[in-house]
């Protein structure tokens, strides 16, 4: 099998794992490449380019400055707060309403055009509207990201309930199960893989939409840090903020991968 085909076959999770368990040779090669890139970045650009390209040393200095004066923790905390609050809200409402709609097909049928329209709309387009309604503070961002997470989890939960093999609830009804027992013992467990899948995808959506919201208009967060420093033509600060983002998303992926590994046993 060619390397390309092999790479295509490796899932996202395995690739994330490969970052962390490597042979010494691979680690050395990576360090070499990184050092070469950084050195090129540091010494190649002429004085004219420097203003736009910045250099690794200035970026590290900017980052250290933020660590020392507390800017980093403050902005990181702001981003993570919006993201996690919205994520929790969106998932909770999404699963709850999704189950209700899934279990009441008549309601679902009446409402589905509206839901589909709302689902299809890229929610980030609502950002300006939400800012008018709720200001540029935390609230508008939480509303936006909650909506993003909600629709994702909500529609997956409905799909999960609809995709149950009808023979399973029927078998339990023949055993004498009540409606509540069927919901608890069949419908919810059967929908769980769908719910978990959407919740996993929603983490990335929550992350990127929080940043987008912060970039559009905001007064806090990593996205704000990027927008602010690029606004004042501070290349080093902009790169430093992007670097924070890289570290944050790698950490997020790693955490997700670990959680997933522990959860999907019966589907083996």
């Amino acid at each position: 099998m060619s390397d390309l085909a092999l790479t295509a076959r490796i899932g996202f999770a395995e690739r994330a794992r490969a970052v962390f368990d490597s042979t010494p040779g691979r680690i050395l090669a990576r360090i070499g490449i990184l050092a070469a890139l950084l050195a090129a970045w540091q010494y190649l650009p002429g004085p004219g380019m420097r203003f736009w390209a910045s250099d690794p040393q200035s970026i590290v200095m900017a980052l250290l400055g933020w660590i020392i004066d507390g800017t980093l923790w403050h902005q990181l905390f702001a981003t993570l707060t919006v993201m996690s609050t919205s994520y929790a809200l969106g998932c909770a409402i999404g699963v709850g309403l999704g189950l209700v709609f899934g279990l009441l097909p008549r309601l679902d049928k009446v409402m589905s055009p509206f839901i589909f329209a709302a689902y299809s709309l890229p929610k980030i387009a609502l950002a300006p509207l939400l800012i008018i309604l709720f200001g540029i503070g935390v609230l508008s961002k939480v509303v936006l990201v909650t909506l993003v997470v909600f629709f994702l989890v909500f529609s997956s939960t409905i799909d999960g309930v609809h995709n149950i093999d009808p023979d399973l609830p029927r078998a339990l009804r023949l055993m004498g199960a009540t409606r509540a027992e069927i919901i608890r013992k069949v419908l919810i467990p059967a929908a769980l893989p769908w719910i978990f899948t959407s919740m996993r995808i929603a983490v990335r959506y929550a992350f990127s939409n929080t940043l987008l919201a912060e970039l559009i208009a905001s007064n806090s967060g990593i996205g704000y840090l990027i927008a602010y420093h690029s606004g004042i033509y501070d290349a080093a600060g902009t790169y430093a903020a992007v670097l924070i983002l890289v570290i944050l998303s790698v950490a997020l992926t790693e955490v997700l991968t670990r959680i997933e590994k522990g959860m999907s046993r019966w589907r083996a």
Partner: protein
Amino acid sequence: MQRNSAAEAATPKIQLLGASRDFEARGRRVQALQPIDLSVKKAEFVALVGPSGCGKSTILNMVAGLLGPTQGRVAYDGQPIAGLNRKVGYMTQKDTLLPWRDVASNIGVALELKCRPMPRADAATKVAQMIELVGLKGFEHHYPSELSGGMRKRVALARTLIYEPETLLMDEPFAALDAQLRLVMLDQLQFLTRLRKMTVLFVTHDLGEAITLADRVVVMSARPGRIRAIRNVPIQRPLDVFKARFSPEFASLHEALWDELKDEVTKGTDL
């Protein structure tokens, strides 16, 4: 009181009166089952044999209340069946195990229901007995996706038998089992159904299985299904399932039933 039980004995447990069933397939109406009459007494074991597509499963689905008859009547305890019939345990051809539960908790699921209150420890004991009975010891904590087809069938059987429904509907329950294990299961099924005086409607392709277990064997014709012959099994019960098939009565009944069945089987295949 006595009159009541006398009436109960007279009323058939299961009764089909001119019951037929049509299906709609690609806009065409197909009769799967011609109007048939069939009564099953309480504690009687009736086997349905016939070629594929002769409506055997349709009969079971109607008795379970999953399907209504297109014409005629299907009654249980003298009452027309409305909605699902919860007096029956139905082991369908397809096993409907819950994929997220392991073997033990799939088998025990019926004992968790409110309609069968039972202390957890008692339920666990019954589950362990059932696992032993169907030969799945050591697989208690395997998930259905980790089992072979035959093992899944045994889980489905155990899950149905464990709550001792008064009537069992079984759709080729042992088709996926190897010959030895099948005999063991036939023996256990005979023992349990007689002990609990269960009424059984049993669909099979295997004439030997039908004669071994059933008080009466119903031979069905190829589609559209109708009853071609009903034979009593004149063998003394309970019988030894391991030896019965070598007795002369068994052989002659097998031959008589095969004579009825063989035309239908060829009719069924040259469609």
